[in-house]
């Protein structure tokens, strides 16, 4: 992940330069009359500079008062030849919370469309599929909830994968296969930015107890495969999914208390399409916890069923609302409860209602939005109001909050109550 430079990522810029150079050479031999530089494809350079600051609204014993404090530069390079496209996107930022400079390659990939029925994208890339609106069931690609909870731009909710995506297009159905040679976990809540409920300490914790996890990291052995088979029938989008890999955030611990990522297989399906005036979506997933199929090991997550059903509609001019009902249903619950040695037991099922509202004002230059999650089973909630104003085509001002509420300190959103924060940002794009 961040800071660790992975050979795959290094490979892409090198290949990119080689290809550009090679392409130029070949053409130069063909048409000697043109100057050497004419043969380089045009390279598009874009990016932004951003300042972002935020603070907690209450004292948190385990974290700083500032929730986010950073100055960030993102640069994006894109070019193409006759047979391929190349992209690099990277961020450097001074991080006031970690008190150090950071670098992250967001994208570094080669894309090619060699035949009518095949697309290939290799390298570091952001991947998304599935029908949920900010709820992910069959999308097993890495997320970064930490960035989302401290109020970074929505783009950062998705962390990149180092993977090869191969897509086949046939009359019957389309198939996407994503192979990740080395497991890419979520950028999960580790205590660095956000305080959390620590099960072993039986209290809230943060920078005093940064989660140290034993992550599977053997190339081509600790790998992930994700599959999607999809078809569009009269613009009703139907899909089947499969995944073989690991729980994306620590889903268990060893007897000595080290967090681990147990093996996980996921099988699912989804459908999305027009219903009445709006769009309906339904998605289901079976999470098979391969290291604890019976559910008898209390140190490893049990298998689960996950369901979401949603509906989105524009109900007034430039006002959009989307509502979803999401359920996580634990399998083998009686075994889990019998073997639970310590700590409060999880509920058998977790219910979450989500509501997203978006309103555009002032010739669509001002966007007001609210993302909200409420769990009646956990009695906790998360609200993310946000306001974005496009001051000019290049300058965007943003403000918002992350509000966590809960009755218990160990529930999913309740544990983050002391992290409730407000933030503001200014971004200049070039």
């Amino acid at each position, binding site marked *: 992940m961040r800071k660790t430079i992975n050979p795959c990522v290094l490979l892409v810029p090198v290949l990119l330069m080689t290809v550009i150079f090679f392409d130029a050479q070949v053409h130069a031999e063909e048409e000697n009359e043109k100057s050497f530089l004419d043969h380089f494809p045009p390279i598009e350079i874009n990016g932004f500079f951003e300042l972002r600051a935020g603070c907690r609204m209450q004292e948190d014993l385990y974290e700083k008062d500032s929730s986010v404090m950073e100055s960030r530069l993102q640069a994006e390079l894109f070019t193409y030849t006759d047979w391929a496209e190349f992209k690099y996107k990277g961020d450097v930022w001074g991080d006031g919370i970690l008190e150090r400079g950071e670098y992250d390659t967001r994208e570094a990939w080669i894309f090619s469309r060699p035949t009518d029925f095949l697309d290939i994208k290799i390298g570091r890339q952001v991947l998304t599929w599935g029908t949920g609106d900010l709820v992910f069931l069959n999308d097993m690609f890495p997320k970064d909830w930490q960035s989302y909870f401290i109020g970074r731009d929505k783009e950062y909710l998705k962390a990149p994968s180092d993977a090869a995506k191969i897509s086949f297009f046939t009359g019957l159905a389309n198939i996407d296969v994503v192979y990740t040679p080395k497991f890419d976990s979520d950028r999960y809540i580790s205590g660095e930015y956000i305080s959390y409920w620590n099960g072993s300490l039986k209290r809230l914790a943060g920078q005093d107890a940064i989660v140290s996890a034993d992550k599977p990291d053997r190339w081509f052995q600790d790998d992930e495969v994700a599959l999607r088979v999809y078809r569009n029938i009269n613009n009703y989008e139907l899909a089947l999914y499969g995944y073989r890999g690991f729980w994306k955030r620590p889903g268990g611990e060893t007897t000595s208390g080290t967090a681990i990522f147990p093996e996980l297989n996921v099988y699912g399906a989804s459908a999305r399409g027009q219903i009445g005036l709006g769009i309906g979506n339904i998605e289901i997933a079976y999470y098979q916890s391969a290291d604890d199929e019976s559910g008898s090991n209390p140190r490893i997550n049990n298998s689960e069923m996950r369901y979401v059903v949603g509906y989105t509609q*524009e109900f007034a*001019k430039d006002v959009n609302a989307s509502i979803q009902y999401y359920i996580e249903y634990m399998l083998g619950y009686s075994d889990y409860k019998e073997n639970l040695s310590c700590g409060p037991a999880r509920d058998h099922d977790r219910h979450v209602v989500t509501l997203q509202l978006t309103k555009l004002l002032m*010739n669509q*230059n001002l966007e007001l939005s609210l993302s909200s999650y409420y769990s009646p089973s956990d009695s906790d909630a998360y609200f993310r109001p946000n306001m974005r104003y*496009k001051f000019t085509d290049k300058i965007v001002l943003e403000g918002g909050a992350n509000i966590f509420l809960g009755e218990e300190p160990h529930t999913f959103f309740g544990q983050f109550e002391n992290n409730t924060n407000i933030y503001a940002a200014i971004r200049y794009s070039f």
Partner: protein
Amino acid sequence: MKTSIFLIGWTLLWGLATNTGLAEEHASPPPTVDEIVHKANHMAFYHGKDAKGKVEMVITDKQGRTRNRVFNMLRKDDGENDSDQKFFSFFQAPADVRKMVFMVHKHTALETEDDRWLYMPSLDLVKRIAAGDKRTSFVGSDFLYEDISGRSPAEDYHELLRTTDTQYVIRNTPKKPDDVEFAYYNAYIDKKTFIPMKMEFFKNGDQCYCIIESTKVEDIQAEENGNNVVYPTVTVSVARNLENGSTTQMIRSNIRYNVGLSDNIFTERYLRRPPRDAMR
């Protein structure tokens, strides 16, 4: 039978006349209101089987501040007789929408909603967008969705107000007045090309609040069934919102017709990785 042969002959003659501009006006009987309206709808939105081009919008507010929108647009007709169409818009500017793709499968049958998708590359997210009010601003400009993708003639009653030396003036009154913000609009249609040169929108009786004018029309050469044809095309148009003082100039360039766009382009595959046709 005789009538239908006459009609076919008449239509062919008109096709020739508008394509070449050679026919004498008095050679044909004056067209009916419905013919004018359908012809105008065709000229504005249905040239050729498909089209591609670049669209630049300059939005100037009352204080003179400007904002730009730039996108490449691909279009392919999906039905017979000027009906369903597919649109693919690849955004180049401003920065916050760069490389986003907006795809629409337009359905002209009444009570059938369009299918819309938005692709956000930074999240690799294909978002299905609920069909919305078509009378809302397109990308924050003074043009509305319907001004870009076309308003079905079947949604209005049409009345020929008058005929001038160069134009037919048609009043269009909505069949469902509660669904739209206007009470009626007058369209000034060029007698030779059938291009709508001006549209004035009225509400609260006779208060004109919006004017859209075609300020430049160019003849675009194209091939149709192996023959060279000319499609007169609006390349510059201006929408003026008289209520808030905002103006949008829309400039279309690099226009090409009948380029042979594949149906596949208007699917999720190309939404996620746009075709070269859209990026260049």
